[in-house]
């Protein structure tokens, strides 16, 4: 599009031919009021608030839907425009209740702002106003539809961004109502953004209802920590409490949207299960003590159980993937200093010889430009909402997406093909894909591919990959404990290499990339997590670990931690009975938004944040706890005044390099029914598990063991039974020979397998 020049209010500005006038005026900082226009949504031009005067056109024109032309002269401030703006705002206010004093949007309301600036100070409307009943649309969004001005931003958001049209305009004329159908409530995992796009108080945050005025709160920029996107957001606080979380713009990460998981998880911070005081276990009895006593006790325990006997090699350090980069680094440094190499973060991997090593090499904003994607083992819409959103945008531009999953999940776009296959067959399909590609490229086949049969599915995927100019292969969480996990990852690497495709590793979560970067994995003679759990250990330092959710096998973990002579120091954010059972010291640590730190996202963006609030009561940020512990252990080199010094030190370290063999060994390792255990999307970390509104949603309540009839018969189960403690759902959506569990509860149950 050619550069042209137009004139806005007498000022000459350059623009691209065909751009909408409002885009140009926004860029030039000219204020044009609007309600229905939103930069990320389609143009409705229904509110008429953005009317401007274009010379040569008799009537005022909506800036949002008027393309610019060479030499166009636009006035945004003249009498004609002012009269139109005044008329439109008067019209919009006819049915608006003006209940600003009791409205949560008051103070941050686009209608309020525009009415003050452009409206009249008296109303000429003396007739009755209409009232719209509210039927409730779920636990997250509060509706007051009488306030709605029918801008349809929420309707377009559902249709265009969330990919499920949930809100709609029913009735007509004065009876037009914005509402969902059948009153099922709003289900989308991105629905909270409707609150942000609503220009009035019709859709507001339910957990935040009647809490505070927007101007009473401090707004701190921060980073979401529940997935490896690291969405940018604002944490709004009042008197040291997080009151609300809203999205921040960053086109390279989350555009302007955040998932419900990131928006509402803050509720967990004030849950009654928060751990508020340091505790030590004296003769089997828990005692609340001061930090000094607790840390002394911890260090004394470490000395008497481990260090005194020169047994640092019988000490273990384990972390959850939610830890900050600084915490990971400090714990590793402490353990290294005292001569212990037993560190690990890969808690839920059954077999560490069979681990997925796959690099991601595509940026988030590039994902929406791909023309083909193959998704392997992921319920991507719920597990990675923001990444799925990018893929959905790609499909809207014509990208094809194929899926290789063990169960048919919901997608908010049309798939090219959806291949449902047993977990132990995935590896052979991928080998078929590789063989097909290599044959096509006239490459010499490696031995392991010789006997592989190439079926139609494999051929189709191969030809898609070969014919695409920018494709990506996405490996999801369901593969983590697949018996062929490492082979699958290596095949993906090979396929990507031979088909010139990108890869995206979604089998890891939260801050795992940072954990790998600082090298929180055993080196030299260090033991990995599974070895530690079955070895004779004298002590553990556990950072934010809840074994019933974090380990693939609860029993083995608990047994290792409860051994009589094993001294366990737990740093946790929330109370937990199992943790209390096996720990000797429990130190309360800060949770999300309460500590400064760094998250490394899938783009490899190192995103640092400061604490938005001070942690409650005696709770301290984990990096400070670790620092003081290091001082008490009299270790050198822990003189940090704040966490940025730790980060600076990390950036001077050589990054941990991973070399792994790419051996591919194709043998089906099992035949019986395999179980894939997935925590439901709102149960993946402790904060989420304690956020009450999220837990009330349909996604939060997901707790089913899906299997088909044949598997149910093999296992001797029926629809009323439970499998591994989770209610059985019999559905033909699941592949043969597989049980897919989505659980929001603890895995108390591995012994039943």
């Amino acid at each position: 599009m050619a550069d042209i020049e137009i004139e806005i209010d007498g000022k000459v500005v350059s623009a691209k031919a065909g751009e909408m006038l409002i885009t140009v005026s926004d860029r030039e900082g000219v204020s044009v009021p609007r309600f229905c226009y939103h930069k990320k949504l389609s143009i409705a031009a229904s509110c008429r608030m953005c009317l401007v005067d274009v010379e040569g056109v008799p009537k005022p024109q909506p800036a949002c839907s008027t393309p610019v032309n060479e030499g166009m002269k636009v006035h945004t401030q003249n009498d004609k425009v002012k009269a139109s703006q005044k008329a439109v705002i008067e019209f919009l206010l006819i049915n608006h209740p003006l209940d600003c004093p009791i409205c949560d949007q008051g103070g941050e309301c686009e209608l309020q702002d525009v009415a003050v600036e452009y409206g009249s100070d008296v109303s000429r409307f003396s007739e009755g106003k209409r009232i719209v009943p509210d039927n409730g649309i779920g636990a997250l969004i509060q509706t007051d539809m009488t306030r709605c001005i029918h801008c349809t931003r929420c309707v377009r958001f559902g249709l265009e961004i969330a990919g499920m049209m949930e809100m709609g305009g029913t009735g007509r004329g004065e009876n037009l109502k914005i509402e969902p159908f059948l009153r099922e409530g709003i289900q989308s995992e991105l629905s909270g953004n409707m609150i942000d796009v609503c220009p009035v108080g019709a859709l507001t945050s339910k957990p935040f209802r009647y809490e505070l005025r927007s101007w009473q709160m401090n707004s701190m920029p921060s980073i979401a920590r529940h997935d490896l996107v690291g969405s940018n957001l604002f944490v709004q606080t009042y008197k040291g409490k997080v009151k609300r979380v809203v999205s921040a713009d960053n086109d390279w990460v989350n555009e302007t949207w955040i998932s419900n998981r990131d928006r509402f998880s803050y509720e967990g911070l004030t849950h009654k299960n928060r751990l508020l005081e340091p505790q030590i276990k004296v003769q089997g009895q828990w005692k609340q003590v001061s930090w000094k006593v607790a840390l002394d006790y911890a260090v004394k325990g470490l000395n008497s159980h481990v260090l005194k006997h020169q047994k640092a090699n019988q000490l273990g350090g384990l972390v959850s993937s939610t830890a900050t980069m600084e915490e990971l680094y400090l714990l590793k440094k402490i353990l290294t200093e005292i001569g212990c190499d037993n560190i690990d973060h890969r808690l839920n991997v059954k077999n560490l010889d069979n681990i997925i090593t796959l690099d991601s090499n595509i940026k988030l904003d590039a994902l929406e430009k791909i023309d083909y994607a193959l998704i392997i083992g992921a319920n991507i819409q719920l597990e990675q909402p923001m990444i799925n959103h990018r893929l959905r945008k790609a499909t809207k531009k014509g990208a094809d997406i194929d899926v290789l999953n063990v169960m048919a999940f919901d997608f908010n776009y049309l798939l090219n093909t959806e291949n449902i296959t047993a977990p132990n067959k995935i590896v052979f399909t991928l080998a078929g894909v590789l063989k097909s590609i290599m044959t096509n490229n006239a490459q010499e086949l490696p031995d392991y591919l010789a006997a592989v049969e190439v079926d139609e599915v494999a051929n189709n995927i191969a030809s898609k990959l070969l014919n695409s100019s920018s494709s990506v292969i996405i490996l999801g969480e369901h593969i983590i404990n697949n018996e062929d996990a490492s082979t699958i990852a290596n095949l993906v690497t090979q396929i990507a290499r031979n088909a010139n495709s990108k890869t995206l590793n979604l089998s890891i979560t939260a801050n795992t990339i940072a954990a790998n970067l600082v090298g929180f994995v055993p080196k030299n003679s260090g033991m990995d997590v599974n070895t530690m759990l079955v070895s004779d250990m004298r002590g553990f330092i556990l950072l934010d670990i809840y074994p019933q959710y974090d380990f693939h096998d609860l029993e083995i973990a608990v047994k290792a931690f409860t051994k009589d002579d094993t001294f366990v120091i737990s740093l946790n954010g929330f109370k937990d009975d199992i943790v209390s059972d096996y720990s000797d010291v429990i130190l309360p640590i800060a949770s999300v938004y309460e500590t400064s730190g760094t998250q490394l996202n899938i783009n490899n963006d190192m995103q640092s944040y400061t604490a938005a609030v001070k942690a409650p009561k005696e709770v301290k940020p984990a990096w400070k706890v670790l620092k003081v512990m290091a001082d008490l252990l009299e270790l050198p080199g822990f003189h940090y005044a704040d966490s940025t010094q730790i980060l600076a030190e990390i950036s001077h370290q050589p990054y941990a390099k991973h070399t792994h063999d790419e051996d591919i060994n194709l043998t089906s390792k099992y035949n019986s029914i395999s179980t894939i255990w997935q925590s439901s999307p709102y149960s993946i970390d402790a904060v989420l598990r304690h956020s009450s509104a999220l837990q009330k949603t349909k996604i939060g309540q997901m707790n089913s063991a899906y299997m088909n009839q044949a598997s149910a018969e093999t296992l001797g189960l029926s629809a009323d039974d439970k499998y591994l403690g989770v209610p059985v759902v019999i559905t033909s959506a699941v592949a043969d020979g597989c049980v897919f569990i989505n659980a929001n509860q603890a895995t108390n149950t591995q012994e039943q397998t």
Partner: protein
Amino acid sequence: MISIDAKKQIDVWIAKYPKDRQSSAVMQALKIVQAENENRLSADTIQAVADYLDMPGIAAQEVATFYENYNHKKVGKHVIRFCHNISCMLNGADDLIKHLENKLGVKTGKITADGLISVKKVECLGACVGAPMFQINDEYFENLTSDKIDQIVNNLK
């Protein structure tokens, strides 16, 4: 929810639109389904139409609630849709609606005791040239007067 016969009728309409644009047939589909469900639509039947046309339920609901020719409550055997939009109103529609209500002994929106007739006030039916007018089932009656209304209503069986 939708009979095989109705599906056949809907398929005729789907065939009139380009491939993957089957949702364009929603108005006719709703009409066909309404006809075989006591001349009314329920949330379930609207959802069934939406499912058949592979469109969101709310999108079908939007159409079903926008147009006056879909009924969402129980209606009589004959539905009188009385236009009260500008042209008809200026030509005395409001008085004639009162006349009709008095004659039938029911208010608009209600059904006569014998279940024969129900009256609805509707927006413009595009017959301003013959205002005031109403529609009974699929037929238009124009240039109405109170006498003409009496005569038409007396003939309804």
